[in-house]
């Protein structure tokens, strides 16, 4: 019994050390963003001597922060709403029908998980050009949502399997149509997996790099991940300003993560345990 206790303590210490190791890189943006260039050059690891927000003000002005930020919020919210809505409906009917035709559609969606972005990148670009969707927020919303369909439909369909069908059958006897059934009975039962899809989708959309790199070359429609890329290229001499920008764009999504993190673990767990 004593050895058991001791081994638990050792595991506890090792785990705490690994966790600290993974946390430590975050020290860089948090400290560099407040330092002066001189402080960074002299002692990169020391704490900033003063907490001034000058770096942030400079970064906001030069990087067009308010536009980029609102672009990112708009594209994230609407692409997640679009993909979660269409994928929930699709996953529901695919599981409930469970016949050859609908299963083939699911396989088609899932095949896309293996499709590299580079393979469709150019034709997607020229097709968006034809439809006038290039360099527009609407175009980004459509593309973000489209690339999420494979994963989200798959994730939600596994959960639909676990929802008891008796409730729906009772409602059918009462004469409710498919849509009434879906919105009144099914959607409330799917709430956990819908929340998981929303959180995972929002994390992905907020940080998406490849799609806006190709489809949003105009600065007016840049989102944060791409804007950081160009901004750092321009401001590699002013590390403190660059990191102020990095930190400012990281904080909202970190806050969202801390608030809603239980849905990530719960959602993945639900899928893994019940499948």
């Amino acid at each position, binding site marked *: 019994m004593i050895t058991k206790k001791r081994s638990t303590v050792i595991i506890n210490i090792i785990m705490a050390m690994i966790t600290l190791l993974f946390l430590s890189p975050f020290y860089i943006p948090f400290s560099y963003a407040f330092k002066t260039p001189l402080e960074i050059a002299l002692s990169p690891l020391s704490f900033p001597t003063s907490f001034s927000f000058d770096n942030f003000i400079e970064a906001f002005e030069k990087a067009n922060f308010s536009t980029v930020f609102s672009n990112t919020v708009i594209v994230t919210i609407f692409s997640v709403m679009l993909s979660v809505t269409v994928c929930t409906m699709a996953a529901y009917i695919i599981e409930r029908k469970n016949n050859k035709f609908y299963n083939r559609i699911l396989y088609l969606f899932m095949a896309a998980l293996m499709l590299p972005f580079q393979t469709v990148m150019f034709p997607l670009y020229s097709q968006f050009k034809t439809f006038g969707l290039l360099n527009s927020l609407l175009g980004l919303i459509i593309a973000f949502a489209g690339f999420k369909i494979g994963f989200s439909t798959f994730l939600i369909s596994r959960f639909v399997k676990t929802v008891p069908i008796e409730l729906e059958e009772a409602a059918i006897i009462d004469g409710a149509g498919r849509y009434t059934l879906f919105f009144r009975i099914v959607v409330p039962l799917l709430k956990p997996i819908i929340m998981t899809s929303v959180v995972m989708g929002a994390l992905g959309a907020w940080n998406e790099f490849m799609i806006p790199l190709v489809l949003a070359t105009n600065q007016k429609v840049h989102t944060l991940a791409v804007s950081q890329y160009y901004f750092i290229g321009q401001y590699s001499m002013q590390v403190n300003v660059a990191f102020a920008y990095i930190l400012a764009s990281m904080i909202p999504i970190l806050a969202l993560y801390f608030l809603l993190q239980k849905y990530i673990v719960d959602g*993945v767990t639900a899928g893994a345990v019940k499948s």
Partner: protein
Amino acid sequence: MKKIKDELIDFTFVLPALLLFVFVLVAPFLQGVGVAFTNWDGFSPTYDFVGLKNLRVLLTDSQLLLPIKNTLLFTGVTVVCVNVLGLAVAIGLNQKIKGAALMRTIMFMPIVTSITMASIIWKYIYSDVFPLALGFSSPLASKEWVMLGISAICIWRDVGFAMVIYYAALKGIPEELIEASTIDGANAWQRFWHITFPLISPAVTTNIVYWICWGLQVYAYVATATGGGPAGSSETVAMYVYNYTFPFQKAGYGQMAGLVMMFCIYIISTTVTRILRKREEML
């Protein structure tokens, strides 16, 4: 009549997803197959059909060897490290230890940062902290070490994600099984290999295949950390495709390279899946 109407109503549930999917993925994919056999630069109104010329040039391009080597190295290192560390951390956190919930929250934090952010943070850790604390210079500046330096960024960012999936799989193992084997006198190592590992092997298979697919497509980590440098030494296959398609304005050739890349990823991932599934049955 009513039955047909019901079927049509049911079909409207899948229709929006299907339309979006066709518009963003299927239609571009099919158009891309056509473009791959042309010499189109990507913007001129005219271009010629060149048959298999692009494929011939691609397969004999010695410039492609280093990107292939880099892509395979990155994939191999990240697949092994992300999965071994992810599983180890998941097992560690699944013991009854203090602060497990907080540790889980922190371990997942890196994936919340964008790849751009992760690369920039690590660029400065490598250039400012490494020489000071460990006494060696940034791996990103060395031709030999650059791919491992980039792989480490991906490992830092992805371990938490692998950990969540393994943690979920571990939670699915009935506790009675573990207890029974403990009473039978199995030690921790035996319990892991004979009970835990076989039961979580579907998650292992899924994870390995996921990270192989992502690794073989790596672009963003390299673009943001080194831009392919120093002197092209960290170029990957995806970067080769991107460079030919956009900056070099050889869309037809780039598209062919993209198709071949997809074909290779498909072959590798289905082969690995088949081998791992067979192993699962033997466990």
